[in-house]
C-alpha cells in the first residue's frame, strides 16, 4: 500500500470536470493529506482530456495520472472499470475518493470488487482513525439512520462522496502529469451505446446546484410546473420534483429527488407542495436551509423546515418570485 490519496476527476457530458471532484480534492487536502503523508493525486480518464490536468492542480493535486484513450469517450463503464482497476493494482493507493454520481455509482463498485478494495458509497462525512484507516458516515435504512463505517487495513479504501458535502477551496500547485497506458480493445467494451441523449438546460445540474426549487404532486399538472421553473430561474436554481410528481407525468425522471432519484445537498432547498415523506426527505435532508410552501397547516414537512409559509402555492409563488427578484437585485 502506498501513501497516496487519489481523487477521480468525474466529468460532465460537456467534458468539464464536476465540482464534486474539486470538493473531494479540497477535503483530502484539508483533513487527510498531512496525516497520511503522501502526495495528493488526481486520476483523469477520458478521451482528449490531457489539457484538464491544470484545473486539478488548482485544487491541490500534485500528481495527475492521465489515461487518455478513445475507448473512454462518452458513457463507457467497461472502459473505465478496466482503466481504473489497472491503475489501482499498479500503484496501490491508500485511499481513492470520487464524487457520487450516476456514473461513478455504476463503475466504482466493479473496480472495488476487481481490486479487492473496501468500498463505502455516498459519504456525508469522512474521517481517519489513529492508524489512518478511513471512516465514513452515510445514510442507511431509508435515511432513518446514519451508519458509521470503518475500513480494515491492508486494502485500498474507496469512498464516493455526496456532492455539495464539502467546500471547494483553491490551493494551486503545478501538477506532475503522469501518462498511463491502458490497453483497452473493442472486445473489452461489452455495453455498447446505441443512442445517447443529452439534455441541455440553462439551469444548473440538480446534484451540484447551490439552490434547488422542487415541486410535488400538488402542482397538479405539467403546465403548472412553470411556477417551479419561474422561481428556480429567479434564484439561478436547479428544478427538482418528488416521485409522485414524476409518476404523474408533470416532469421528467431526471428531476426526481429522493430515495430512487437523486440525492442533493444544496445551500437552499425550496420544497413546494411537498409533504416530506421519508422517500423524498432521504434525497434532500442534508440541505443547509430548507424552506417549504404548503397549504396544509399539519404537513409533516413543516417540522423538517427552517422556514415555511402555510399558503396556496399558486398565490404565494408569483409574489415570492417577484420579491426575491427585487432582493437579489439589491
Amino acid at each position, binding site marked *: 500500500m502506498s501513501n497516496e490519496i487519489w481523487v477521480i476527476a468525474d466529468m460532465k457530458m460537456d467534458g468539464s470536470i464536476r465540482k464534486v471532484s474539486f470538493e473531494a480534492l479540497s477535503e483530502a487536502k484539508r483533513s487527510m493529506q498531512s496525516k497520511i503523508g503522501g502526495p495528493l493525486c488526481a486520476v483523469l480518464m477520458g478521451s482528449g482530456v490531457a489539457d484538464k490536468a491544470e484545473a486539478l492542480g488548482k485544487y491541490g493535486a500534485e500528481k495527475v495520472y492521465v489515461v487518455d484513450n478513445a475507448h473512454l469517450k462518452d458513457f463507457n463503464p467497461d472502459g473505465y472499470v478496466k482503466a481504473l482497476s489497472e491503475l489501482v493494482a499498479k500503484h496501490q493507493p491508500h485511499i481513492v475518493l470520487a464524487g457520487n454520481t450516476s456514473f461513478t455509482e455504476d463503475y466504482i463498485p466493479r473496480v472495488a470488487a476487481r481490486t479487492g478494495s*473496501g468500498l463505502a458509497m455516498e459519504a456525508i462525512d469522512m474521517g481517519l482513525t489513529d492508524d489512518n484507516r478511513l471512516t465514513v458516515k452515510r445514510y442507511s435504512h431509508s435515511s432513518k439512520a446514519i451508519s458509521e463505517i470503518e475500513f480494515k487495513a491492508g486494502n485500498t479504501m474507496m469512498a464516493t462522496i455526496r456532492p455539495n458535502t464539502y467546500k471547494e477551496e483553491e490551493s494551486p500547485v503545478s501538477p506532475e502529469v503522469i501518462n498511463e497506458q491502458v490497453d483497452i480493445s473493442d472486445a473489452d467494451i461489452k455495453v455498447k451505446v446505441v443512442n445517447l441523449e443529452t439534455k441541455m438546460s440553462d439551469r444548473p*445540474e440538480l446534484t451540484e446546484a447551490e439552490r434547488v426549487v422542487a415541486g410535488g404532486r400538488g402542482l397538479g399538472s405539467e403546465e403548472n410546473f412553470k411556477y417551479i421553473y419561474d422561481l428556480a430561474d429567479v434564484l439561478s436554481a436547479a428544478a427538482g420534483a418528488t416521485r409522485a410528481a414524476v409518476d404523474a407525468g408533470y416532469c421528467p425522471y431526471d428531476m426526481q429527488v429522493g430515495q430512487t432519484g437523486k440525492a442533493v445537498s444544496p445551500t437552499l432547498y425550496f420544497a413546494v407542495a411537498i409533504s416530506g415523506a421519508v422517500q423524498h426527505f432521504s434525497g434532500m435532508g442534508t440541505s443547509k436551509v430548507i424552506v417549504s410552501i404548503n397549504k396544509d397547516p399539519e404537513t409533516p414537512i413543516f417540522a423538517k423546515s427552517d422556514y415555511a409559509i402555510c399558503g396556496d402555492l399558486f398565490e*404565494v409563488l408569483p409574489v*415570492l418570485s417577484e420579491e426575491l427578484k427585487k432582493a437579489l437585485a439589491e
Partner: protein
Amino acid sequence: MKIVVFVSQTLDTEARVAVSSSGDSVATDDVKWILNPYDEFAVEEAIQTKEKLGGEVIVVSAGPARGIDAIRQALAMGADSGVHIKDDGFAETDNYTIAKIVASEIKKIDGVDFVLTGMKIIDDESVQVGIQLAEELGLPHVSLVSKVVEVDASKLVCQKEIDGGSVVVEVPLPALITCPDAMNEPRYASLPNIMKAKKKPVNEVTLDDIDFDTLGISRDAVGKSGSKVTTVKIEVPVIDRKLKIIKGSDDTTVKGEEIAQAVQELVQLLRDDAKVL
C-alpha cells in the same frame, strides 16, 4: 431462457427505526422483514421476460433462516424455484464477500442467460452489491435500467438515465441488470399462487457447500471480523431546524394581504437570518 434474480430480505424501513443496545446495528426485535422493495421490480421484469420468451426464473438469496419468506414471496409472484444460501453471518458481511458467495452459487446453475436484481437494498442502502455480483460472475452489467427496450436469446437493449441525459445501450447476453422502481408495476401474489409457492422447490445451501478456496477468500470473510468495511456505529439523525413557520391569522393558510406580508417576512429571514441570498 434461464433467468436468475438475486433477492434480499430487508427490514421494513417504513416502520420506526431504532438503534440496538450494542449501538452498531438497528434493533430488530419488533421489525417486519420483507422482500427488498427494489427486488420486486427485478422479479416482475424476470417474469415478464419469461412470459415473452419462455424459460424459467430462479430466485437466489443469501440470509438467515427467515430469509426463506422473501424467496417464497418471489415464488408466489411467479418465479419457478429458489436457492437459499443460509447463514446467520450475512447481515454483518460486506458486499464484496456476499457478491462472491452468491456468484459461486449462480455459477452452479447451467446456462444462465439473464441475471436481475434491485437497484438498491433499502436497509444498508447498498447500490453496489448487484454490480459487484456482475463482476464476480464475469458478466457485463447495466445498472439502473429505466426500460427494457428489447430482449431476445442473445442480446438486451435497454435505457438508463444518467446525469445530464439518458442512454440506450446494447449488451450481449448473459448480462446482469439492476432495477429501479420506475421500470414496471410488480404484480400482487394471489392467494392460490401463495399456496402454490409453498410447494415450489427451494434448494438450501450452507457455507459447507461453498468452495472458499476457489473464491480466493477464507470462510472467516463471512461475518463482521472478516469484512473489509464494517458498521461501527448507528445513529438516528436528529432533525435540528429553525421551524419558523409563517401562518395566517386563523392559524391556517395566509390569505389576501397576509400573502405579501408572509413573503416579505420570508425573504427578510432568508437574507438576514439564514444569509443565503
